[in-house]
């Protein structure tokens, strides 16, 4: 099956000059894990900003988990860091080495590329580099269950641990 048939066409887009605050709002406003595609005027993909990229910007290069444990007021530290990075724009943060798929690529190729790279979501681009949509791990698994196995999908809800 071609990826174009199972891709999602509703994606998050940003311009290269979008600031940190707007990127943060876009990504947190989405209910499912998303990444932001930074595009030019003709929707040609320039780079990708993930939630990991936004989190990493808040952490100074010298910081590690051990050093972070020594801070008693972490909220204050994070607030200071947000102040420092708030003027950064998408072009400063985005990753430009991008793994992508073409519409005619097979679902199996998408699975292999995701397994190889460890990325959650891959963009689908046309021949000119224009973004057409995205495909993620969950969608591949859903297609797998629907088309390739005899398993039945059920609507089991997650357990709410706070109620236990």
């Amino acid at each position, binding site marked *: 099956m071609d990826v174009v048939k199972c891709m999602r066409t509703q994606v998050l887009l940003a311009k290269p000059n979008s600031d940190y605050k707007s990127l943060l709002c876009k990504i947190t406003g989405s209910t499912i894990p998303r990444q932001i595609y930074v595009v030019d005027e003709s929707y040609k993909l320039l780079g990708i900003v993930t939630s990991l990229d936004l989190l990493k910007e808040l952490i*100074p*290069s*010298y910081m590690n988990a*051990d050093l972070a*444990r020594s*801070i008693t007021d972490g909220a204050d530290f994070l607030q200071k860091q947000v102040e420092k990075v708030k003027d950064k724009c998408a072009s400063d943060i985005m990753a430009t080495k991008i793994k992508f798929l073409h519409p005619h690529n097979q679902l199996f190729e998408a699975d292999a590329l995701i397994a190889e790279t460890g990325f959650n979501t891959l963009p689908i681009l046309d021949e000119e580099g224009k973004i057409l949509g995205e495909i993620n791990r969950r969608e591949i698994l859903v297609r797998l269950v629907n088309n390739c196995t005899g398993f039945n999908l059920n609507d089991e809800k997650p357990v709410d641990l706070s109620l236990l």
Partner: protein
Amino acid sequence: MFWIATTIFLVAYALIISEKIHKTKVAMFGAALILITKVLHQEEAFDSLELGVDWNVIFLLISMMIIINIMTKTGVFQYVAIKCAKLAKGEPFRIMILFAVITAIGSAFLDNVTTVLLLVPVTLFIADQLEINPIPYLITEALASNIGGTATLIGDPPNIMIASKAGLNFMDFIVHLAPAIIIIFLFWMLAWKIIFGNRLHVRDELKRRIMTLEEKEQIKDVPLLKKSLVVLGLTILGFMLHGFFHYEPATVALMGATTLLLVSGEEPHSILADVEWPTIFFFIGLFIIIGGIVKVGLVEDMSRAMIAVTDPQPDNMKLLSMVMLWFSAISSAVVDNIPFVATMNPLIIDMIHKVYDLAPGTATAEHIQHLAVMPVWWSLALGACLGGNGSPIGASANVIVVGLSEKAGHKISFGQFLKYGLPVMLFTVFLSMIYVYVRYYVFKLY
């Protein structure tokens, strides 16, 4: 053969200085050329004490790297750094001094690069908390690591190489170099007090931030920390006594490293993978290239030239000592001090043969450690180690500090490092000259 070996040596040196190709590749390829052209036979390269690889240096380096790799997993360095910042009550200048002291002590007993690798992140963190520029602190740490590393046999690779070639023990370095370094360090800190003492101020509220830090959170593995400290302590004790028990330093270090590996429960695979193999192979390649130029007589020619310039006498080599100190310092500011010392070691040995009129290869410890020769070895060690402060590329610790600082958004330019490093290098080498002159040529305290 003479021109083949000389060309390989000069081209390798030029490539190492240019940093166009990684120095390990250059040294290993140069060594392969020395062997393939039969300047040295493989047996000479691997087995000859005079011409081949100095396995004492190699195993001492590997063993110390193993001990350090295990110790870094404990978080002890970060603990000490945060504890010191709290002891200084968040006062920026006191923090600068205490960080310089712990860097110098760490570098004297461990290696300079690891010490700064562990302390730079904490320094950036503390500077961030105090909202001050970290660059003076970082450069101070690089300079302190090179100064501290000079004090002991295991502190800096040039000292390990000199000790092995001259048959010197750990206590020789403690007796002869440690006092010089303590004096130099005190004068340097005094100078720093004049320069920075009244310039570094922060608000009280920022100092309080430092006092709220939890240093205990840095200790990741208490049982491993205890084992590491015991083994490191015993290893240092072993270094102090190795001359008495007639063990080579590498034997002591290997015993310490393997004991710690055994009791730590760490997987050898990951610990050995973290050994700096490129550095180890750089040494191996370099030893073979230098063995080649010793065999063909280039080192002998250089030795003749040095004798002609400095006129060393069997009972007095004062001018040679002074020239050696400054020449080593200036060279080490420009060239990596490891190839420099690898070249100077056989040169001094050859010169000893000529001054004492000995047949080639017949010098004994009596000649190599002659009272008149000893200040020359100490001058070489002081010059080669302290010279590294002269430029950002003069020592590995400087390169690491500049790189980490840039990554954290605080670029240290070549000129900026030079502004601090060069005066400190000239000042410390000048103090070393006074020390060597007064100790060995006025009071004759050999």
